[in-house]
């Protein structure tokens, strides 16, 4: 878009606007209110509600301002008797078939139609004809639908198509008989619920929050989602110490994700108030005995004494401290401080699936924000599956390709759904992602890599050619399949390939909400990884202090490792595999009950805010660590304030220098951590190591054919999502109940074979 500016006159005032600007945006940004329903920036134009009518000189009729592009010398009137009459007429038509059931409707109080009628509606309804009646029904376990309330703005169908690429909800019929519906009356999609969010009326509604509360009595708290590394901003609505819903509606919150949330962010919050939450601290006085509830003082005293005993008997290095990529930066920092200053051990780590340390050590370019992805020119995706594991990134990639004309190169062992958007899809053998990286970085290895990947060498050179032809931003994304050497190699590519016209940006795809933060704090830089720490349990490691839980991945093959420890202290929300052998269990506060920060895969440090007081006797993780340190005779001087912890953290962490809570206050202006750019370095060792490991790859391995179904990772119940009954229905194939007029939860017994099985546990372990 050129930056040439043109003159537009609105209501007698002259404005200089960028050429190509949309008239409705220009009117609104200059304070001339123009109402609209169907207009939604960043979506295809619709012009069906016709409430944004304006008068443009020299045009015969009133024009819909949402479809008009500004031209030089345009003279526009947005307020006149003629326009008011037209708008009032349009609103009357919209209400012609809309039922007057606002008292029952969940949208009542935050309904755009209600607001529109307050401004533009008549006092009386002049239509006396019968309204089309259609009963309320369910479209899926999480989406409720009242077709009668629909005003046919088609925001839901556009969002479903353009954001999610699903086309699961569509308009059928013509004229007055148009209805919004699904194929087969049942919604088979990723259940993101974005259609609910953008619906301006009460047509599509949250099936889990149905008839629970009214929006005006909810306390809205802006916070960061806890389910993946995208760090979507959302607003938790709570009432009386209970989280009722999570929304991203722009009247409450305006973060990096706009109004986008995925199924986990939007519907998987009931774990916060789940009845299985740990209520009190518990102590197992005798190995193999029962966990017995205790007071905080007793539990901390017991843990401190045992820690002292272990340190005296085996030395400080026998104690391991384990953080988590799920908890806040403040909590991880407190744990690191505990390990370094209270215990004095180098055996600390976080329970992440893979470490980003090699990537950040060789980082050759900055991290991309989600906005950069949306306007990128070329996107290279090596491994990973953003649509399932980082849904916002998936949506941004899709929009970059569909609306921005970006070129997408997908290198994956599976034909993931995003490859439908790809300019080039390189279908490789499973486990061969490293070879693709080596070929991207160095053309000498094309032949070798092509042979091992099971692709033609020309495909690799075409991909490299696309990258090197890019003018603008080229974004490189990678998943957890890469080995450390391949991560370093990939991270150094910009040094060789960036020019004045081309900027490289990185977008790692870790699995957890604070994976990047756990790395930044330095918790991943300990002497052990989570798996090796378990391997050493009972030998050189005698005691573990764990925040959160080990992943099923870490425990696989060493399930009994935790039982060999002399002491295991766990702070958790629920009883897990890790608490099974714990000597002391401390109840921790969830993300909705604690203040802090998460760092997402953009490197954006975003605030987490307490929406409700901690459940039962739980406490925020950093407070527990500080209390344990206090019992051991060391005052962390955190003054019971998360901002004090963050100030100390920011002073001691290079990438976070200068950050303070006031700076992070505004979610519309997120602050990016300053990750150091590593200088160009010699990678001969890494290349040689990679070449050797690649040469040992199997050349005859079968490729994985077929596209994985939508939701194959999103719907798997994990520790947190498994607490939501809807996820069990979805994981069991989203069965259509016999009667869609009644909530599926009432009709299908989740216990009847629909509960999680061990194979169906989510990769991300949540």
């Amino acid at each position, binding site marked *: 878009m050129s930056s040439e500016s043109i003159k537009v006159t609105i209501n007698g005032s002259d404005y200089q606007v960028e050429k190509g600007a949309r008239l409705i945006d220009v009117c609104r940004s200059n304070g001339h209110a123009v109402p609209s329903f169907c207009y939604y920036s960043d979506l295809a134009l619709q012009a069906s509600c016709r409430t944004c009518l304006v008068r443009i000189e020299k045009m015969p009729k009133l024009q819909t301002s949402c479809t008009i592009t500004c031209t030089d010398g345009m003279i526009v009137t947005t307020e006149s008797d003629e326009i008011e009459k037209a708008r009032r007429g349009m609103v009357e038509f919209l209400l012609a078939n809309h039922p007057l059931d606002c008292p029952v409707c969940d949208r009542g109080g935050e309904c755009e139609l209600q607001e529109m009628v307050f401004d533009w509606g008549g006092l009386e309804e002049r239509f006396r004809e019968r309204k089309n009646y259609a009963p309320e029904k369910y479209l899926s376990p999480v989406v409720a639908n009242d077709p009668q309330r629909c005003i046919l703005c088609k925001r839901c169908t556009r969002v479903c198509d353009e954001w999610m690429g699903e086309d699961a909800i569509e308009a059928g019929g013509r004229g007055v008989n148009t209805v919004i519906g699904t194929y087969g009356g049942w919604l088979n999609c990723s259940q993101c619920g974005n259609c609910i969010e953008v619906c301006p009326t009460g047509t599509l509604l949250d099936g889990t929050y149905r008839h*629970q509360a009214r929006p005006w009595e909810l306390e809205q708290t802006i916070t960061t989602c806890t389910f993946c590394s995208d760090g979507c901003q959302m607003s938790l609505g709570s009432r009386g110490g209970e989280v009722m819903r999570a929304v991203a509606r722009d009247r409450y919150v305006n973060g990096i994700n706009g109004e986008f949330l995925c199924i986990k962010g939007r519907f998987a919050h009931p774990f916060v108030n789940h009845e299985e939450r740990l209520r009190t601290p518990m102590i197992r006085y005798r190995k193999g005995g029962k966990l017995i509830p205790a007071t905080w003082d007793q539990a901390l005293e017991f843990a401190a004494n045992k820690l002292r005993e272990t340190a005296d008997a085996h030395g400080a290095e026998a104690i391991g401290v384990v953080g988590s990529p799920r908890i806040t930066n403040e909590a991880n920092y407190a744990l690191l401080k505990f390990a370094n200053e209270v215990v004095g051990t180098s055996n600390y780590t976080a329970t992440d699936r893979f470490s980003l340390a090699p990537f950040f050590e060789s980082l050759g370019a900055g991290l991309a924000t989600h906005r950069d992805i949306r306007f990128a020119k070329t996107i290279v995706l090596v491994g990973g599956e953003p649509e399932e594991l980082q849904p916002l990134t998936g949506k941004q990639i899709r929009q970059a390709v569909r609306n921005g004309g970006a070129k997408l190169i997908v290198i994956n062992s599976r034909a993931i759904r995003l490859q439908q958007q790809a300019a080039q899809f390189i279908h490789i053998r499973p486990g061969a992602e490293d070879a693709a990286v080596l070929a991207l970085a160095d053309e000498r290895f094309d032949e070798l890599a092509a042979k091992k990947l099971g692709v033609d060498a020309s495909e690799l050179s075409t991909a490299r050619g696309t990258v090197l032809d890019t003018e603008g931003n080229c974004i490189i994304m990678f998943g957890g399949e890469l080995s450390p050497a391949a991560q370093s190699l990939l991270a150094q590519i910009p040094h060789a390939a960036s020019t004045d016209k081309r900027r490289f940006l990185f977008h790692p795809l870790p699995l957890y909400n604070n994976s990047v933060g756990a790395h930044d704090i330095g918790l991943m830089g300990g002497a052990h990884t989570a798996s090796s720490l378990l391997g050493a349990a009972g030998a050189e490691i005698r005691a573990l202090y764990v925040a959160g839980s080990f992943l099923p991945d870490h425990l696989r093959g060493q399930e009994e490792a935790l039982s060999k420890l002399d002491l295991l202290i766990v702070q958790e929300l629920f009883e897990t595999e890790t608490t099974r052998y714990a000597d002391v269990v401390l109840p921790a506060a969830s993300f909705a009950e604690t203040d802090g920060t998460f760092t997402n895969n953009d490197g954006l440090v975003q605030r987490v805010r307490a929406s409700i007081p901690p459940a039962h006797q739980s406490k925020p993780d950093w407070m527990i660590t500080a209390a344990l340190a206090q019992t051991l005779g060391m005052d962390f001087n955190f003054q019971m304030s998360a901002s004090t912890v963050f100030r100390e953290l920011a002073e001691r962490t290079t990438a976070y220098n200068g950050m303070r809570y006031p700076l992070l206050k505004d979610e519309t202006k997120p602050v990016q951590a300053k990750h150091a750019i590593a200088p160009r370095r010699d990678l001969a060792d890494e290349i040689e190591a990679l070449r050797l490991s690649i040469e040992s790859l199997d050349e005859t391995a079968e490729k994985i054919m077929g596209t994985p179904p939508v939701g194959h990772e999103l719907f798997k119940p994990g520790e947190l999502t498994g607490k939501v009954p809807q996820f069990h229905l979805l994981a069991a194939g989203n069965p259509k109940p016999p009667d869609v007029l009644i909530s599926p939860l009432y009709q299908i017994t989740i216990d009847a074979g629909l509960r999680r099985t061990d194979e169906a546990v989510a990769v991300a372990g949540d």
Partner: protein
Amino acid sequence: MSIISDIIDSTKAIIKGMSITLAQIPKEKWTVQYPDDPVTLQPRYRGQHLLHVDELGREKCVACFLCAAACPSDCIYIIADDDPRPEEERIGVDERYAKIYNIDYGRCIFCGYCVEACPKDAITHGYNFELSVYTRADLLKTKDDLLITKQKQSPNYRVAFSDEDVDSEYKEI
């Protein structure tokens, strides 16, 4: 002042006062012998609330929370729920109903805003006015105390007819 004039003055005063008192004796009494006799209440008297039902006995309340929102003393507490059953079997008139509906009469100021706000005419003020209890917790009335089908009406009042001149009963006769 002499003693005699004092006596004359006070005797005059007593006679004046007693003449009024004695004059009332033959007149009609307007003291209501509550609780032996019922009191007469204005038709629009604002007593304890009533939750109404429709002709099929289903609760009219759809738990829209407008009464709670209008309440200036914050004394109404509602928990809404979904009633997915067919229309005839439902508790309420719609698929949304109030699972819990509490009014705290320790806080209620009987302003009538809740009645004004109700879009379904589900809540009105009744006439029960004897709300004193021995423990403060008993001031919290639940749906069972408020539903018109369940609330026990006090025998100690009668409601005046709309054309009845209630006020003059207490005025000069």
